[in-house]
């Protein structure tokens, strides 16, 4: 079903009603990303920080954790996926209901990182498709929020091509301390 709606949006013969419905669907999916945290390793520590008050993932509607893949929309793969873990990941992905999105959190999930050996899968895209890669070992929460916003953009436009979060720096006013920064400044909001 998701594929069809995507094709309609990008196709040339677009009826007014269909685009309206698709736009509504895109909007709803974008702001209601129930997540399945597939947390395995170090990045989980940053994932906790992301869910905690300072970075507050809830603002994006993407924090409600569902610990059953059936009810989740967004699969966060947080941390290294080993050879032993990979089949589990595949199983979890298969059990998710469409439309489903995958975010590779951190270098290990994106490409295996510096664990280039017999035990580690070099990137989860060897096992499941990925929508957004967030590099970093572990990535800063700001970077992950960038990734989330990128994913939201992609969902709204129906674009399923894999994308990578690029590094960027935001300007910081002189007297702004870090605690206030996420509270009010929210420079990332411009991208969303």
């Amino acid at each position: 079903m998701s594929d069809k709606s995507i094709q309609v949006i990008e196709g040339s013969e677009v009826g007014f009603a269909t685009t309206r419905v698709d736009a509504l669907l895109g909007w709803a999916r974008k702001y209601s990303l129930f997540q399945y945290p597939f947390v395995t390793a170090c990045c989980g520590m940053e994932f906790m920080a992301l869910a905690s008050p300072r970075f507050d993932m809830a603002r994006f509607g993407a924090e409600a954790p569902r610990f059953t893949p059936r009810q989740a929309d967004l699969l966060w793969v947080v941390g290294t996926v080993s050879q032993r873990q990979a089949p589990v990941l595949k199983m979890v992905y298969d059990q998710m209901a469409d439309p489903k999105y995958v975010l590779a959190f951190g270098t290990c999930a994106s490409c295996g990182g510096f664990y280039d050996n017999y035990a580690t899968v070099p990137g989860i895209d060897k096992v499941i498709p990925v929508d957004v890669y967030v590099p970093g070992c572990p990535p800063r929460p700001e970077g992950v929020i960038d990734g989330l916003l990128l994913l939201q953009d992609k969902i709204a436009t129906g674009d399923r091509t894999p994308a990578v979060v690029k590094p960027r720096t935001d300007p910081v006013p002189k007297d702004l301390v870090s605690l206030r920064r996420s509270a009010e400044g929210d420079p990332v909001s411009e991208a969303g």
Partner: protein
Amino acid sequence: MSKVVLKRLEKRFGEAILSTHDQFGDETAVVTPEVWHEVALFLRDDSRCQMDHFIDLTAVDYLGRRTPRFEVVLHMRSMQKLHRIRVKTPVAMGPDGENPKVDSLVDVWKGANWFEREAWDMFGIEFKGHPDLRRLLMYEEFEGHPLRKDYDANKTQPLVEYREGYEKQAPFGLPEGMPFGRQVHDRWKVHVAGRQTDGKTNILGFEED
């Protein structure tokens, strides 16, 4: 500080103690595999030693450096006397490439259980008398023992299907390795990629179809 333990060991076991040293301040005794279990029991129960705190059990592969090839290393500590000691025993591969064997210490210290399973998993050292010598860190279908020096660090093995319960199921995926190739959503073109899993190179080659 822990010299007294070494002295008592030498007194008790005599010839079976191959050598002792205290390099970098760590008192060490090398014993023959035959008395391995006996030494452990003695160290735990002797009133002057009381090495009741199990610390570590592992192995080292000295491929090309020493014979016998493997050395099983045991660290322990005494809660009361604060002694620390290391006991090692050299073990060799069997004549037909059989796995080296040594007595299990699970009945001496409970904690040895997982450590021995790990040593079996990583080095292929069989512990005689171990109640449940399964692989610990790797999966059952994994072939070889990765920490042996002759196991190539890059050698990947096929992914196996997730197992419910204890029983094994057939592996899935390509027989020669992981189903490599970038997986993307259906709409997107499927890239074909290959990775040599046996050799040293591991280059991901992408190709538009």
